[in-house]
């Protein structure tokens, strides 16, 4: 890629990032442009990757080589598009039936085993492994962890058990369950904050990169231009408001 195109790319990247961030001040046409461009570019990228990495090597090339069996799954896939045309939308059922059938067949056993059976075993196993002399700190902490997780699981399950009225012991257990859930949500929130800041850092790092003389100070110029726009827009909208009120 030539140097000119890299610089133009830098201006686009810096500009679109700043346009997106401008929404934090207030809604504006530049944000709208960036938003629509993001969706459009994303779809365009998806289309070309699907065409060159899937359609041509997986469908077109085999057909050209005489492997005509590929036509069957290709037609099943194409049938899904028929749902957009009311008169022939029934054709899409064939594709969906196939997708649902094999999807459910593959997913149900795998998910049941991984997310249910294994997790139930994973909660109970450590309790049965407790034993020995308890003469080390780690033995005690392992035992405590095993019981703590088991206790927490039971309490949370009580919270989500709606077939019994929540009173007496059931209420107490479900209340403890809420505390366990709150601990989890706290951890998730903390991580979410960290994650969002990481993403913000990533964009700022790129903006700093594009602020160099190599990119002709793209970040600074675009940010400044946007600030000028907001100042002008502020005064013109104020003037408009006064005129409207005068009428």
């Amino acid at each position, binding site marked *: 890629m030539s140097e000119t195109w890299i610089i133009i790319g830098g201006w686009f990247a810096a500009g679109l990032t700043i346009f997106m961030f401008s929404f934090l001040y207030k809604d504006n046409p530049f944000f709208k442009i960036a938003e629509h461009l993001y969706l459009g570019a994303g779809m365009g990228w998806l289309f070309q990757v699907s065409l060159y*990495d899937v359609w041509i090597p997986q469908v077109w090339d085999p057909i050209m080589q005489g492997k005509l069996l590929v036509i069957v799954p290709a037609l099943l896939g194409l049938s899904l598009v028929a749902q957009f045309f009311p008169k022939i939308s029934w054709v899409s059922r064939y594709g969906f039936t196939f997708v649902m059938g094999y*999807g459910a067949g593959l997913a149900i056993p795998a998910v049941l085993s*991984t*997310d249910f059976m*294994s997790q139930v075993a994973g909660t109970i196993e450590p309790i049965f492994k407790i034993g020995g002399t308890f003469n080390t700190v780690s033995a005690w902490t392992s035992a405590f962890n095993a019981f703590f997780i088991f206790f927490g699981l039971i309490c949370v399950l009580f919270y989500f058990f709606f077939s019994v009225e929540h009173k007496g012991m059931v209420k107490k257990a479900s209340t403890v369950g809420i505390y366990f859930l709150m601990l989890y949500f706290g951890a998730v929130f903390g*991580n979410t904050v960290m994650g969002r*800041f990481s993403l*913000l*850092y990533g964009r700022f790092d790129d903006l700093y990169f594009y602020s160099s003389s190599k990119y002709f100070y793209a970040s600074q110029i675009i940010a400044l231009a946007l600030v000028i726009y907001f100042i002008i827009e502020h005064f013109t909208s104020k003037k408009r408001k006064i005129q409207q009120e005068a009428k």
Partner: protein
Amino acid sequence: MFKEYISKFLKLDRRWIFLLLTIVIFVPIIKPLGLPNISIGSNTKRVYDFIEALPEGGFALLSLDYDPSTRPELHPQAIAVIRHCFRKNIRVAIMTFLPGATGLIDEIVEKIPKEYNKKDGIDYVVLPYQPNYVAVMTQLGSDIYGIFRTDTKGRSTKDLPVMKGIKSYKDMSFAMCITGTALLDAWVAYAGDKYKVPMLGGVTAVSQPGYGPYLQKGQLKGLIGGMKGAADYETLLKKLDRGTKGIDSLNLAHFLVLILIITSNIIILITKYL
């Protein structure tokens, strides 16, 4: 009077907080503070130790399922893991289920293999994007060439030296999914648990706590979480890069959030109870 004065803080225009946050994150980028990354996460260390213990000539299948929206967190993770594999002379196959990842994968293979003098097709291979992850993950359990007949350059994967002796999961040292989506769950279910291939993961900080059960049960051998995880891995690898550079900004931003939370709570306590 004092209560009224301090309660104004609670009605502060949030745009001032945005501005403060911008300053706090931007300043360390312009002038790095060099704050140390001391505490290494145990789950990240498990990933490092697992790869470190592998013999030379092993084979790693890396599924880089992230797009530019999660790039700051996940790209440094992928780079660090690939560097580790190359340093250990482990062969690498890179694949993706996300069309948006293809450009980022190109970015990696343009830069990282050169650092270790690794050759395309001999030491590593980039496999083309594939939709329908369930079908692909299942197919990889029996015959990788049934789904990946060619690489991204159109070469027959079967004939590439990097793929020598590799037919399915059972020939691989490990598989790793670095993702900002729920694809790691699918990898654990359809590859790790079903075909007993050791699974490693790299996820965004948001999703990290949800993978605790998989780690406890051993369904995941290790997990890198967020930019902090990437920084930890770079520290372990002794090759500091963009993950570590972000730690300054993250530390300051977290400090700001803590101050804001504590201040707001103190003000609420004062205005309510004093």
